[in-house]
């Protein structure tokens, strides 16, 4: 299975819009939304079947048994994450706890245990296509592992599929690193703004460590031609294949708001995405 990951570094550059269009254009039989912090792909892709849901357990969290606690304060003093509060009863702040187990090991009264905590939910839609997605519970930290689970459940449900399209998450941190592992190619959706360029450079640096093929396209290129040219010359200088320009298009917003992909209607952005898609496929299958 060839895996194409769509990333942007900066949020809101149109990653999901482009992923949605690619899925339609490729008639992809397998796709996943790895933006588990703010999943959106399901909004542009209609699923006829019901999702198979499963709970996702993140890191175990500490729990203090009040009946056994002798209030020695050792757990609080040794917790590096300031996760234990004396109120005056000793309690664990589940949002701060990282499950390291120091409190459990140091407690002289055996009052602390580590309990698995539900950190999110995985959803898998299987009909003639396989769509894997998940949503992280608010304030849960272990998003990278959930990303790995999303990709795993997609792969095992769509073993004999030749192409999978994966919508990544913004940033350069742990969920992005998890979504990068094992992909064949990364398409970076850049935005012609100074912020967008700065973020693009950081995401390329992060992605390069995994040695996938990397290509760049520019969304809303006409909102700033000068910056568009800067991105293109950056790509030339770093020998990154350039997959094309997509214009800003209010029709695209309307398509999305009607639950459609931008290639479902005839619009300038949709036509440009087709071109980007063709170039991307060529690079992926070289």
């Amino acid at each position, binding site marked *: 299975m060839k895996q194409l990951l769509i990333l942007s570094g900066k949020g809101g550059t149109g990653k999901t819009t482009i992923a949605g269009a690619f899925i339609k254009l490729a008639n992809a039989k397998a796709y996943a939304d790895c933006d588990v912090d703010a999943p959106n792909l399901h909004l542009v892709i209609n699923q006829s079947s019901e999702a198979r849901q499963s709970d996702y357990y993140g890191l175990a969290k500490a729990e203090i048994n009040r009946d056994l606690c002798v209030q020695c304060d050792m757990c609080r003093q040794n917790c590096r994450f300031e996760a234990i509060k004396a109120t005056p009863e000793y309690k664990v702040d589940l949002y701060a706890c990282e499950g390291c187990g120091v409190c459990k090991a140091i407690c002289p009264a055996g009052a602390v245990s580590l309990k698995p905590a539900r950190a999110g939910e995985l959803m898998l839609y299987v009909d003639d296509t396989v769509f894997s997605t998940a949503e992280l519970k608010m304030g849960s930290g*272990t998003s*990278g*592992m959930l990303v790995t689970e999303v990709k795993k459940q997609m792969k095992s449900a769509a073993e004999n599929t030749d192409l999978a399209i994966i919508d990544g998450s913004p940033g350069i941190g742990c969920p992005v690193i998890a979504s990068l592992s094992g992909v064949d190619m990364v398409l970076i959706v850049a935005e012609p703004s100074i912020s967008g360029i700065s973020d693009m450079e950081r995401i390329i640096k992060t992605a390069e460590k995994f040695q996938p093929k990397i290509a760049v396209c520019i969304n809303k290129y006409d909102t700033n031609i000068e910056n568009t040219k800067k991105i293109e010359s950056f790509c030339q200088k770093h020998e990154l294949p350039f997959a094309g320009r997509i214009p800003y298009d209010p029709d695209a917003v309307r398509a999305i708001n009607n639950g459609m992909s931008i290639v479902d209607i005839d619009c300038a952005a949709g036509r440009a995405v087709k071109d980007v898609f063709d170039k991307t496929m060529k690079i992926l299958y070289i």
Partner: protein
Amino acid sequence: MKIAIPVDEKSIESSVCISFGRTPYFLIYDMESKKSIFLDNSAAASQGGAGIKAAQTIVDNNVGALLTPRCGENAAAVIKAANVKIYKTINDSIIDNINALNEGKLALLDDIHAGFHNHGGK
């Protein structure tokens, strides 16, 4: 020499697992006596650092070689520190790969990928 292979099920007829760190089982196979033992991989459920823990497990079982389709940077560091050789599997058949090793047809794994670091982290 004993060798280790990440496998999907506790059977020599099953297949090589694509993930080293998160494989459900390891086959520890003795090339001389042809005996096989299957180990549960306790690292599979780890939030992070699964490759490191899995590598520790196979090193502790005194193997001379690891046969795997892929291996992360951290796991490779552990395995190399123990002077265990890492060979790249040719397909997902366990028996094919053992035979290929016997015939000297397996190449050393050279593309160590950058790992899934810390994906259990915040």
